[in-house]
């Protein structure tokens, strides 16, 4: 199986994702340039973090117009696995592949530090190696990670178990102190109803190597590999 990491002008976590998949997990992985229009031979797509198009207009807004995104939308429609990390999550929201929108962090600060997130749904291709309720430590690095959705959308997300991660304390408790950016209902990541498209603000690729002192992020990539392997059998 082959992973495709989409590279936009301004992506800056593309090589981290590539390295984790290639070196840590020994997977086939290719960079996909944003001007490409095909995803032939790609089994899972990663939209990496960064500042695509300089965050002009709104974060992720311009990237949704890139030539490759038509292929990404079709790929998602066919059930292909799509993981959007940070700016990748913002792009998925702007494309409408996931509901809601991002606004500025309530503190107005760019926040770069470890946070704790609780697994709210382990029955997804991205979290099947986790237990529901398990708390992971994963870094965030964003200025616009304040997830917003109206009440009807939040109710629908909850009803369909689409909230995959929430910000919590290290003990898994919800609270304003452990919500770094002001996100509605402490949401750190969501998936679509079909469970094949996920967006998350924390960066699992930054904590997926023992050398970096934290391997919690490996659970996400290992889950994806398991899910893809099961599909191939």
């Amino acid at each position: 199986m082959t992973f495709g990491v989409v590279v936009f002008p301004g992506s800056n976590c593309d090589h981290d994702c590539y390295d984790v998949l290639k070196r840590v997990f020994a997977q086939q992985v290719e960079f996909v340039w944003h001007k490409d229009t095909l995803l032939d031979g790609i089994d899972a797509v990663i939209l990496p973090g960064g500042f695509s198009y300089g965050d002009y207009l709104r974060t992720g807004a311009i990237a949704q117009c890139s030539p490759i995104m038509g292929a990404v939308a079709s790929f998602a429609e066919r059930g292909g696995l799509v993981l959007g990390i940070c700016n990748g999550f913002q792009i998925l929201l702007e494309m409408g592949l996931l509901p809601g929108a991002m606004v500025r962090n309530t503190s107005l600060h760019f926040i770069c530090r470890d946070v704790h997130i609780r697994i709210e749904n382990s029955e997804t291709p991205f979290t099947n190696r986790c237990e529901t309720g398990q708390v992971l430590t994963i870094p965030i690095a964003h200025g616009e990670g304040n997830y917003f959705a109206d009440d009807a959308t939040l109710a629908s997300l909850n009803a369909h178990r689409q909230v995959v991660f929430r910000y919590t304390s290290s003990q898994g408790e919800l609270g304003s102190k452990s919500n770094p950016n002001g996100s509605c209902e402490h949401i750190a990541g969501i998936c679509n109803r079909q469970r094949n498209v996920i967006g998350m603000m924390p960066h699992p690729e930054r904590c997926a190597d023992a050398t970096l002192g934290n391997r919690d992020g490996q659970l996400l990539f290992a889950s994806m590999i398991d899910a893809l392997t099961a599909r191939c059998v």
Partner: protein
Amino acid sequence: MSEVSITARVYITLKTGVVDPQGSAIEQALKSLGFDAIDGVRVGRTIEVDFVGRTKDEVAKDIFAMCERLLANPVIENYRVETIPSS
């Protein structure tokens, strides 16, 4: 005869109920300057798009599609448009 130019000016504002941390920070700053009769500040953006060789009706149709597809995010933002003949 030169082609008619029309400028469409788009005013984009955050919907009621969407938190606006920038607006809140500006409100606090204004109050610290002594402007205490303030009951809220909201920050938006203005975008001007210059059209050439289009009728006013065509501009109205195009700018609406542009707002829906890219210029505004309907999840969090409202917009209104005014058109100005430029030359």
